[in-house]
């Protein structure tokens, strides 16, 4: 029988106590135990960015973080970006520019873009492209995604 370890994490503002298997990743726990399926599973080797979440203020590939490593941590997922039914400016910009096509990579793109704007509120095109280089989009909506991020950066100026 797999040994379970008690962890406590704050996910999207809510404190959760969970018994997790030692080998389960943060991605496993988010999707399977907490039913937060907005975070996506694709490559499982930290290359595609679909599982990007924020952990203690920095983004991680949740497929590469063991759930036990998140013990005591603060996690934000795509489900935590909107507040009380109101989209964040970034989410709204993704909608407005048509950045979301099939949509599968979008949660990860949003988390990475959110982190980028937190660190650099006025990125250049090159900085946006570099900041999102770890998030693959096979619909290849990179131009629309970049436009969305730049739109939010411009609006922050006003």
């Amino acid at each position, binding site marked *: *029988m*797999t040994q379970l370890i008690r962890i406590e994490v704050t996910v999207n503002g809510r404190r959760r106590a969970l018994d997790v*298997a030692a080998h389960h990743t943060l991605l496993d726990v988010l*999707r*399977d135990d907490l*039913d*937060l*399926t*907005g*975070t*996506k*599973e*694709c*490559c*499982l*080797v930290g*290359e*595609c960015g*679909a599982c990007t979440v924020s952990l203690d203020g920095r983004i991680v590939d949740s497929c590469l973080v063991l759930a036990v490593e998140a013990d005591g941590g603060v996690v934000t*997922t*795509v*489900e935590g*970006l*909107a507040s009380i039914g109101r*989209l964040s400016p970034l*989410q709204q910009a*993704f*909608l*407005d*520019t*048509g950045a*979301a*096509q*099939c*949509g*599968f*990579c*979008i*949660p990860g793109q*949003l988390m990475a873009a959110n982190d980028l704007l937190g660190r650099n509120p006025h990125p250049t095109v090159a900085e*946006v*492209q*570099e900041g*999102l*280089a*770890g*998030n*693959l*989009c*096979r*619909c*290849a*909506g*990179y*131009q*629309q*995604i*970049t436009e969305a991020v730049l739109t939010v950066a411009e609006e922050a100026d006003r």
Partner: protein
Amino acid sequence: MSARIGASPVRVGGQARVTGAQQYVADIHLPDELHAKLITLDCARARIVAIDTSAAEQVPGVHLVMTAADLPQPVPRFGPQFEDRPVLAVGETKYHGEPVAAVAADTKDAAEEAARLVRVEYEELQGVFTIAAALDPAAPLVQDPALRPGDPLAGTNVLREHHFGWGDVDAVTASADLVVEGTYAFPMVTHFAIEPHAFIAAPDGDGIAVWSTIQHPNWLQRILAKVLDLPLARVRVFAPDPGGGFGGKQHPKLEPLVAFMALRAGRPVRLVLTLEETFQAVRRNSTEIRVRSGFRADGTLVFRDIESNYLLGAYADIADRTVTKGSYAACGPYRVPAARVVARSILSHTTPSTAFRGFGNPQPIWAVESNMDEAARALGIDPLELRLRNLARRGETIIPGDTPADGEWEQTARKAAELIGWGTPPAPGRGRGIAFGIKSGPTTGLSYSTVRLLADGSVLVYAGTSDMGQGARTVFAQIAAEELGAPLEWISVVMGDTSVVPYDQQTSASRSTVLMGNAVLAACHDIQAKLRAMAARLHGVAEAEIVVEHGVVRLPDRELPILDVLGPGLGRLGGELIGNGEMRKEAEAGHPLGGSAAFYEFNCTAVEAEVDEETGDITLVRHVSVSDVGKALNPTQVRSQDEGAAIQALGHTLMEHYIYDERGRIRNLGAIDYRIPTSMDLPLELISATVENEDGPGPYGSKGMSEGALLCVAPAVAAAVRDATGVVIRDLPLTPERVWRALQERPTR
């Protein structure tokens, strides 16, 4: 923003996509479900000696270990074109990753542990992994000849050999002033949808319910009904919006296996593939294509002689159809007096190839357009000018007996030329290339749509298309908004449930806006006719004097909002108006493809590139893609499709290819070693534009358009590299190493 035709309202389903609420197959859980895991071998071709499941069955939580012996005998085979793929490998594996058994357990962990404990005794056999190896007369056969009785090719690895053409190439060869010949290779690439394939099956009364990332739910329903021996009405396929398809999700792969497992376990079974397993499930045909083209000194084409070898995988899937569609149209959008095309579908012990955006066309386009560039140089004619001299004008024949040229293609080419600055000198060290791409649209089609105008004026649109990112939901909602006047927020588009949504043949070949779009339009017109009858009855006016458009009922003396007719017309019991639409494109007897093209996708791509002579690295300074789309019903989505296709094409052009080892294993399996374009691989400037003459067969003059911008990227880039450096490269992808080596071998200028 307006929801009308020609506007770009926010994507229908967009909100769910930016909040994480969108439910893809892997996000769906059923009560009491079991988790499945596949058992595969670490080689391509092997004889299965014995499978010992005893240890796996002892793992706590394991409910089922399934091998071919547990399936109906003989093991059912299925496929969209040939019924050659067994539900589980029978006696012999044919490719690296082919499942020989599968387990189902209460948890993923238990399933994975049990899968590791299934002991397969096998004897590895020599396989064929290349065109040359497969064509060797001594090569082992991939397919059991008993699967195609009476076929003279059954004793070879050639599944089909196709011959197309017209005129007499041999007779006119002597009249050519110049013959240009070359052989061009296109790599094995994979779809790499960010959503790996996923399947769930559950017993459902006397039948079965299956959730799949499938593009063609009705085709899957038909195949499941056959292998399970169930009536169609007992097979319910749910097809949630796929997270990217690109052709890789057109046809069934593991659904029959998961269905048999669910029926045997009596519980829902889910199988979510890893990305690595998805790589082993789908890829594009690789090709080697020899092109001989004859020209007069003035550039006029005299003939084309094309021999194409397409390397399929171990099972045919729909790959042979991609061979016919691609090679049939291989001569391009030109007036070609004589043509001879031979195309072979060659089986090998590799991942089964299937449809992939462009459907067999990017390969011959790479070959023929590269050949065109070489011809232009040899003739001393500008590459654009050479193409324009031969380009078919509207109404002219490109393939005798098929749909003539259906657009102002010269306008498209000239627009691209203008946007790239063709004819002006590029900066030192840079070069430019231009190419044309053409793809014939669907040859047959059948789409039904039902539209329900509810008592309050809101609308339900039923369409069996799969919205895998192209935005079909939005376009169909826009058509309903245009015709019935409802705002977008009052329109729901229902898809992805074969028990609820009427039949649609498939979501492929850039057909949905044209074929399903016309069905939706017809269903809206049906409702308009019913509203006219209603208004005639209510107001004592002849139906012929009433017009219904944009949500308004026009009587001879006044206009009424639809609701003012609908309410009184429906009366005290309420109810709704139901409209039905049907769009058929019938098969044509005797046509080599079974039917002529519903439309052509035409694209001109022009690029300006700089090559780092030290590293071989190519920088695309500017990439222009212009498509003839007839009419952009939603310009944002059109742009997204064109730019997405253009960037996707940079994958097979610059970086993507499977690497097989001598045992037929893919060595670059997964996201670390197989690179696709990222945000750092974009052209410095990417410009997409459209030509819109409202001359297509779709609603409001639209044409299909989702593949065009991918078709001719590779030859345009290679031509730009040649223009910048003088080196001609005939093999894709144009990796830095390949370019660097070509530069080293370049004769000193």
